[in-house]
Structure formats: C-alpha cells, structure tokens
C-alpha cells in the first residue's frame, strides 16, 4: 500500500452524523492511481454518505478528504448515481457532452462509442431502457476523462443480465482509461468482480479491507473467486451492529 503522498485520494478520520445518528465514525481510506476499490455494506451503513462526501456533495463533521492535487479531493471527479440522472431535454449526445467545450465535443461521440451507443446519439433519453440510460451516464462520466470515478450503486436498479453486462463494460473502460474508481455496492459478487480491494463498511466503520489478487476478467466460478466472495459476505454478517455499543 502506498504512502499518503503517492495516493490519489486520502480520506482521514471522517465523521458524519445526521440529527444525532452517527453515520460515519472515523473512516480512513486511501485510493491509489488506477486502483479500483469496492465498498460494500448493508443499507444505512454509511457507504453512500462516504461517497457523497468524497464527491463534495456533503461536508463531513470532522476529518479530511485530500487528493494528490491538493484540492478538496475534487481534481476531476465524476459520479455515477443509482439513477442515470440524464437531462430529458437534451439529446443523448448533448447529455454526454454536458459541460464540455465545443472543441471537445468529439469526445462525447468517442465516449458513446465506448459504451456501444454510437447510433443513439440523436435520441431523447426518454426512449432508452434503464440499462441504456446508465450506459449514457457512464459515457457522460468518461467524456471528461476523469481521474476518479465514483459509482454510487449505479447498477442496483438493473436486471441481473444487464447488470452483468454493465459490470463488464465498466471493467473494460476502467482498463482503457486507467482512472481510479470507488464503487459502492451491496452486492458481494459485484465487489469481488470489480475491486482490486474490497472494503466492508459496518455501522459507519471499516470492518474489512481485503485485497483481491485474481486475474481479470475474473472467473466467477473459480474457487478463489468464490472464497473471496464468501469472505466479503462473512464480514457483512459478522459485522452486525453491536447492541452493547453506545
């Protein structure tokens, strides 16, 4: 594991509570250049809050988020949300080109090609399926060549087959563009398939930081993969909130 200076992202001592309820209690996390980290946890464990603080959408009560670029951890960060959040009044291509300069517009076309939707650029988002909308959202994130992509359960609402395709697509573009990524998910298999490292968050604290060193793309029926998945699941179950606490 690299030092704090070499890391792209350095999260230290993050605390956050909502109306008295502690959602994050001292989370430390480092993300290296090009690294893919999956954060798993049950709903309400604070994983989405962690991601939103890193994205700059919320402020922590205590703790810091810094990037190697020195700013507030927002060098060139893009987020994929659980819902695609496309602008219905912009055509697909214009959605992907959101906030790109006119000279950079061909990057939107390239990004649409990357996600296999180059023929749908002229459509309105309303005619696309849920999976296609998320692909457009992925293309929109890629078009600005981020160095950090934050994914907040972006595949949660998709059917099993589409989800599998999207996981493969995300892995493909991650390899191509070599950005770092932080994936929040509740699916142990998704975490094991995509993460270089899997972090388990229980009740606002990290209970597992597990490195997965399996060749990609990962064979999901391989015993090592299944073992890794089991370890993640076990951490979620063992880490039941302790009633004695408080």
């Amino acid at each position, binding site marked *: 594991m690299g030092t704090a200076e070499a890391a792209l992202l350095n999260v230290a001592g993050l605390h956050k509570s909502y109306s008295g309820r502690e959602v994050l209690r001292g989370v430390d996390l480092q993300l290296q250049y090009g690294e893919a980290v999956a954060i798993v946890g049950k709903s309400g464990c604070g994983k989405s809050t962690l991601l939103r603080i890193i994205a700059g959408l919320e402020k922590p009560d205590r703790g810091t988020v810094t990037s190697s670029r020195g700013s507030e951890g927002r060098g060139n960060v893009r987020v994929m949300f659980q819902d695609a*959040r496309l602008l219905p009044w912009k055509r697909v291509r214009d959605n992907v080109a*959101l906030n790109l300069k006119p000279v950079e517009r061909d990057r939107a076309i390239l990004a649409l090609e990357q996600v296999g939707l180059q023929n749908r650029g002229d459509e309105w988002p309303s005619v696309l399926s849920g999976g296609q909308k998320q692909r457009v959202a992925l293309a929109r994130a890629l078009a600005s060549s981020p160095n950090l992509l934050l994914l907040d359960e972006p595949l949660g609402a998709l059917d099993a087959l589409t989800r599998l395709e999207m996981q493969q697509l995300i892995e493909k573009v991650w390899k191509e563009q070599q950005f770092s990524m932080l994936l929040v998910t509740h699916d142990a298999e998704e975490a094991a398939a995509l993460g270089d490292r899997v972090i388990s968050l229980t009740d606002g604290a990290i209970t597992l930081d597990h490195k997965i060193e399996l060749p990609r793309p990962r064979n999901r029926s391989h015993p090592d993969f299944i073992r890794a998945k089991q370890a993640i699941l076990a951490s979620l179950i063992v880490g039941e909130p302790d009633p004695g606490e408080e």
Partner: protein
Amino acid sequence: MTVTRLGSLRQTLFPWIVPVAAVTVWFAVTVTGHVPQRILPSPITVANSAIALTRSGELPRDLAVSAARAFSGLLIGGGLGFTLGFITGLSTTAHLVFDSSIQMFRTVPNLALLPLVIVWFGIGEEARIFMISAAVFFPLYLNTHHGIRSVDKGLVEMGSVYGLNRGGIFTQIILPAALPSILNGLRLALGTMWVTLIVAETLAAEAGIGTMTAQAREFMRTDIVLVGTIVYALLGKLADAIARLLERKLLPWNPAYSSRG
C-alpha cells in the same frame, strides 16, 4: 399504413363535428322561422354583418384595440408573475417574504377588484389593463414558482458534480425543467385574459370587441352581438393554438407533446 392514415384523418376531422353540427342546427332553426331573427339571427345574417363590419373598418379597429389591450395586460401582469415566480422559486428568503401574501391575494376573485379599480383608475384604459394584468399575474406566478420549486434536486446535484456553474445549472437544468409548468401557466393565463378582457370592455370603453357588442345590444342588433361573441371564441382558440404550438416547439423532448396535436 392505412390504419395510421385513417387515424390522422380522425384527428383532423373529428374536432370539426361539433362546430359543424352546431351551425347546421342554428341554420335549421332560424331559416325555418322557428326562432325570430331578433332573438337569434341566421348564420347568413351574422356572416353578412361580419363582412359589413369588416368592410367599414369597424371590426378590424375594435379587434386591434382589444388585442393590444389584452397583450399589454399579458405583458405587464404575466411578466411580473413570471419574474416573481422565478425569484420566489429560486430563493427561499424571497419565498418566505412574498409567497404567503401572494397566495392570500390569489383567493380574491379577480372581478371583486372591479369597484376598487374604478375608484383608483376610473373607467379609463388603465383600469382595463390593470384588470387584465391582475388576472394573468396569478396563473403565471403560481406555475413558474411551482415549476422551479419542483425541479429534480438530483439533476441539480448531478450538474454541480459535472462542474456546471450557477449560470449553467440555471440555463441547462432549472429553466428547461420548469418550462412545461411555465407554459401551462401561460395557457391558463390566456384563458383568464379573455374573460377579464370581455368584462373590462363591456364596462364603458370607447372601442374594442366588448364595446361593439355592448352597443349593439342597446340597438337590439343581435347579429352584431353574435359576431362579437364568435370573434371572442376565435381569439380564445387562436391564443390556445399559439400556446400549444409553443409547447410543441419548446418541449420536443417531452413525450406528451411529441405525438398528438
């Protein structure tokens, strides 16, 4: 193919069934002499009166006066409602300061202001424009306000993550998101605009369609009264058509406007 062509034929023809039937019945009962001309002149008499009024220049002049009146009221009241709706939609402070008062005045029927308006402005042009402005203010205010308030927060959040500044978020997210509601407000405003115009013009004016009909009533010229009434109906229909056209031109992305006319 045949099915769709038949469908579009239905779409263009069916809305005409009621007007054509109404004119036919009107024609039938008047030509046969069942209804005296003084009560209900025949469509031909009314058409002739319309032609005569147009030739004499009376109808075009009254129409121009009415239209100018209606649209200056729409511009003043609508512009004000639109602007205030925007401000209270965007700023929580402005919402707290203005909204409850505006909501209170909204419940006052527009025509109940008439005595007050006469005291303030007499029965001059200002009074009529004030009445129309007051009438169109509320639908535009309410719908603009509501449109801005109900913008999907997730989209605004996405915009800020993707680096849009405040101006970009406003022009690319908030304004287009609120546009359907604003246009709906405009349509409602056009509706109340005509109603108020008619009342305002019937109340002593020198010119305008309302004045024309009010004077015709005194001379028992039912044919001219009917011309005025039909002109009002046509103006209302025209305003509605313009609003619909705006909706289709400005909201091509909205599935509600893409297919049906």
